[in-house]
């Protein structure tokens, strides 16, 4: 039904990834989400966009920053922000809530890196 849910929903097949959200970097608006949505995504969106913006907007002309990953970790959870695309202030990021009891940082990051290029293309 929703192309966004279908697309980012694929990420949920990875063990340990509990929920994902697609966030508009220009406004912090959550454009779509899938999975266990107990976290208040709407409230989280603007903060995520702000962090990602700081990470990706390196100063200087012609600097191309590849999709950056911003990560927050607690003992049991990993919150990963992956920039899927960014240009001239507008962009989309993927936010994933990961259960570290079921996976680890390396695996989760790897899997998301693998799936990311396809998420917006399909």
């Amino acid at each position: 039904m929703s192309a966004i849910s279908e697309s980012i929903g694929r990420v949920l097949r990875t063990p340990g990834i509990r929920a994902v959200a697609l966030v508009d970097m220009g406004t912090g608006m959550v454009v779509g989400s899938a999975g266990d949505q107990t976290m208040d995504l709407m409230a989280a969106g603007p903060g995520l966009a702000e962090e990602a913006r700081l990470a990706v907007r390196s100063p200087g002309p012609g600097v191309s920053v590849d999709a950056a990953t911003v990560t927050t970790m607690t003992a049991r959870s990993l919150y990963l922000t992956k920039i899927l695309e960014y240009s001239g202030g507008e962009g989309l990021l993927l936010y994933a809530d990961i259960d570290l009891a079921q996976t680890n940082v390396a695996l989760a990051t790897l899997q998301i890196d693998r799936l990311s290029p396809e998420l917006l293309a399909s």
Partner: protein
Amino acid sequence: MTESQEPVFPFRATGGPRRMTAGPLGEMLTEYAARGLSGTVRVIGDPGGLVHFSQGGVVAVETPGAPGPELLLSRPGQISGSSWALAYAAAAAGGQLTAELVRRKLIGAARLEALLRIALADAMFVLTAGQVDSCEAEVAEPVCLLPLDPPADVSWLLAETSRRLAVLTTLPSQLVPDRDRVTAKARPLDQRARLDDAQRDVLALANGRRTARDLAFALGRGVFAVTGELDRMHAAGLLAIGPRRGAAPVPPLTGPLVTRAETAAAGHRAGTAGQAEAVREISPPRELPRRRAAGRGGAHHAEAAPSGSALLRVLRLGFSNPQPSDGGH
């Protein structure tokens, strides 16, 4: 119906012409959502616009106040003009343009849905942040070029709009997106290197004639996003805010035709807002088009609702016309 969980739109009393709350618009949309209706809500105001809904969900929002999805799609690096034209020719008439764009691999389905959702939310924000004089609803299958599928949930849309309006009221610069023009401040050479692309794009266009809305159109970005950008740039000392659009009040003409320059001069002489006695006549009084006050002070005549096309009923919520602008602040 449901209990009133509807988000409350803050009444923007800050800076400039008064604005109406979006409450009645929100009420209308909420009611239509509850009934699962399809149709179009025409918002008469400044900028005003159209909210298209299908089976209770919002599929598109059009307004002269925000660039629509077509403009966002034509941004450099997105879909080329010729590819667009071909897809348009093939599918627009049949209402299948979104499917055609994806089929031709001009844009991914998820990305297109994201873009449509982003454009819709921005247009809704602009509509409700602006002046709402009245709303009329027409119940019929809406016709739009790029409908969002699945449609946007009304309660989600109202909540997101409410969030944005709240952000607007707390901006340090108190920038009004469609009123405050911005001008790039001169930067010393060494500091110019520290700008990023988005800031550079804005500064190139910030010539003192453009508001956040104007820049959004010029850049192919959303108005809310650009407003935030300008606010941050102002805080960083990169931009000056002003002059404001629609700041000069013009009294409605009831007598001899006078120019704004003369009204201002007369007001200055007489120490009043240019009353009749101090004004010079240009020509003997005669019937002339009644001049409306600049900006938001003037009355907006409601457009006649299209007749004969409403299937069920036409709702009209009317509001008293706003008072003439008191000078912009």
